[in-house]
């Protein structure tokens, strides 16, 4: 996950101070020195680092912290608050025009991911906001940029307006607006060519498009791996054409994400979305607070719950809960559950959202093997319905059949059955415990399947 390296270093530093009953200025100073290193290594802009360190230091040596009973935790809280502030406080939703169509312009350097993000944004708008977007191919410079957008449009069945590479981007934008009017598209997303922020001619072109289409949102698309220069790029684009928000891409890499921390504080423009994968639905709203708590290893339960709500069928979940309580949980249900979890995204990403997950031994570098999940599925699929309902009937010859049918080995079948038994036992313990407290822990021991 992004931020991992930063998270690791910050947590290490903060752990040293959390439990302390007394903190003096020297402690804070020592800690902030390490925080400074961690932030610089994460590509956070140097000026931003300095400011951050200064604010946190000042607040940490304040009277109320020093005198509180848990000064260590207070300091951690201050760091979290300031991190959140740095990234912009509240989540900032997309602004729609009062009168359709809403116009969105995508700008940025070459290779930041504008075209891909345009496709993703259209997907989000259609699925979550019920909009009918029109994509505009205004990148006439890069070879095959128009084909790229057209292919994406086909993939997500969203119309793409293009006029080849002979018309000027401004003209293309103008005609696209007319087209949107005719076809009643309520959102127009203009994909512009990547350009250097120092290229005056091309920047003028953006200004012209902006002038003409009066966009409601101008999104600067920034590669999350950008180094110290990220703020200059953002500042330049903001000063020349005026941006309304930032979309950070490639955040599913292992970047330490310094750009995310710097851009907002320099441009005062919010990060609105983050790109989290190569698939067309991998664009998520950016929540500064949640990100801060992920960086500090406090997990991100809110996002986890949202993801679950989006992807998990509530009826099924209730049914499952009932089954868990009555001990009638079968392999069939297990398969179901597994598929639901899979829908939520890559497993290791999900695990990282759980508070304290980073402290589970070995989990931090355990690459959760999704193909292992496939094998488990294959084994279950190779069982008859009766076997799935009642695994006890699986004898040696059945096992052999299942192993052959699923392309696995008898050992693997055995292991799955054993783990399933153990899980059932654990569920039993859990449910009896939960009769008192009414919080449900759905799949205890689930992750042990995929290690």
């Amino acid at each position, binding site marked *: 996950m992004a931020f991992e390296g930063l998270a690791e270093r910050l947590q290490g530093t903060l752990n040293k101070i959390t439990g302390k009953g007394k903190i003096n200025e020297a402690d804070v100073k020592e800690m902030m020195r390490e925080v400074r290193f961690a932030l610089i290594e994460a590509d956070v802009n140097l000026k931003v680092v300095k400011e951050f360190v200064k604010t946190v230091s000042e607040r940490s040596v304040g009277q109320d912290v020093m005198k509180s009973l848990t000064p260590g935790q207070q300091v951690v809280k201050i760091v979290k608050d300031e991190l959140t502030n740095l990234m912009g406080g509240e989540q900032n939703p997309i602004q729609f025009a009062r009168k359709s169509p809403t116009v969105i312009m995508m700008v940025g350097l070459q290779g930041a*991911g504008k075209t891909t993000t345009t496709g993703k944004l259209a997907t989000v708008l259609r699925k979550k906001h019920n909009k009918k977007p029109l994509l505009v191919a205004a990148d006439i410079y890069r070879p095959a940029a128009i084909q790229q957008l057209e292919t994406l449009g086909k993939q997500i069945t969203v119309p793409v307006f293009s006029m080849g590479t002979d018309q000027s981007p401004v003209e293309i934008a103008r005609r696209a607006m007319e087209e949107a009017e005719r076809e009643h598209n309520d959102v127009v997303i203009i994909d512009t060519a990547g350009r250097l922020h120092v290229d005056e001619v091309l920047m003028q072109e953006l200004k012209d498009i902006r002038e003409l289409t009066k966009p409601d949102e101008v999104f600067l698309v920034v590669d999350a791996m950008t*180094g110290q220069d990220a703020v200059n790029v953002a500042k330049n684009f903001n000063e020349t054409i005026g941006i309304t928000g930032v979309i950070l891409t490639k955040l599913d890499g292992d970047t330490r994400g310094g750009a995310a921390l710097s851009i907002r504080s320099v441009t005062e423009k919010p990060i609105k979305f983050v790109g989290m994968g190569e698939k067309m639905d991998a664009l998520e709203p950016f929540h500064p607070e949640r990100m801060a708590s992920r960086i500090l290893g406090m997990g991100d339960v809110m996002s986890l719950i949202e993801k679950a709500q989006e992807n998990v069928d509530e009826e099924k979940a209730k049914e499952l809960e009932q089954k868990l309580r009555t001990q009638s949980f079968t392999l069939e249900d297990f398969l179901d559950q597994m598929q639901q979890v899979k829908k939520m995204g890559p497993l290791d990403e999900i695990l990282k959202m759980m508070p304290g997950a980073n402290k589970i031994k070995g989990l931090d570098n355990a690459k959760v093997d999704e193909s292992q999940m496939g094998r488990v599925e294959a084994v279950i699929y190779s069982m008859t319905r009766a076997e799935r309902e009642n695994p006890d009937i699986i004898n040696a010859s059945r096992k052999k059949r299942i192993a052959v049918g699923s392309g696995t080995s008898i050992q693997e079948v055995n292991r799955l059955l054993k783990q399933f038994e153990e899980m059932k036992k654990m569920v039993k313990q859990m449910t009896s415990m939960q009769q008192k407290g009414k919080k449900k822990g759905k799949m205890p021991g689930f992750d042990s399947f995929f290690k």
Partner: protein
Amino acid sequence: MSFFKKLKEKITGTNETVTEKFKDGLTKTRESFTSKVNDLVSRFRVVDEEFFEELEEVLLQADVGFDTVMELIDLLKDEVKRKNIKDTTGMQTLISEKLVEIYNAGEEVSNELNIEEGRLNVILMVGVNGVGKTTTIGKMASRLQKEGKTVMLAAGDTFRAGAIDQLVVWGERTGVEVVRQAEGSDPAAVIFDAVKAAKKRNVDVLICDTAGRLQNKVNLMNELEKVHRIIGREIEGAPHEVLLALDATTGQNALIQAQTFNEATNVTGIVLTKLDGTAKGGIVLAIRSKLDIPVKFVGLGEGIDDLQPFDPEKYVYGLFADGLEMEDEDEEDEEGTEEDK
């Protein structure tokens, strides 16, 4: 004679236009990085702890990275102590000298492409998304063609929408054949076909494009390993070059990219792209000193000819060019008194 004069003469003597290209391409870099150093030198008349602290910040802002900055600062401090330097004039020269020194500290590796006459040379291009792999391939094809080689391209990026078309357009521009299959097909199969075709047609160089992938995606890195393996199986000793394209604006993550791609495919060289737009590319120093992978080419613009072989001395010269010329003029006046460094 000063280090810079030597450098300048060495460079300008060989190829004026290329040096100009470097100078132009690095305008942005020079403006931010060099003017900061110059500013620093003129503000501090004396070399002291504070001077080093500010220098450290300038370097950090150029994405040089913490460890390498520390190493450089230590080197400088030693040198200053040894030579008993008190005055900041001439510090630019010292800094650039040490920069080149750090760059050249690793094993001696050639900046040249490993291309031999009389065999099929295979170049594999790898990197994360959006760094400019396909564009670099287009430029490189044109370059090699001008050197009189026959070139073939393999459209191995079957994942990203429009990637194949993009390479085909470059193929048309340069008049080079592109081996391709439908989008979504197995990249290893495309490369396999391309190698066969290249053998049959007796081309000199086959350049293979691959889809951009983030280095932490295990499956995708495995796929790349497979592509690498297949090329090696078809031609012994191939690929002769594995070039990692790195975006010059990338920060410290570039180091991790270089490490991971190196593990998967044995990277033989780096192409630093988009150097014209950035204030830095300082990360190449870190990569060179930690991983011993040389930068072989730099992308200095969007034109077909804007791919240039990398020369660390030229790079440093490009960084300091303006400041140096001034210093040079000063020096010429006192030529007799200046001792050789």
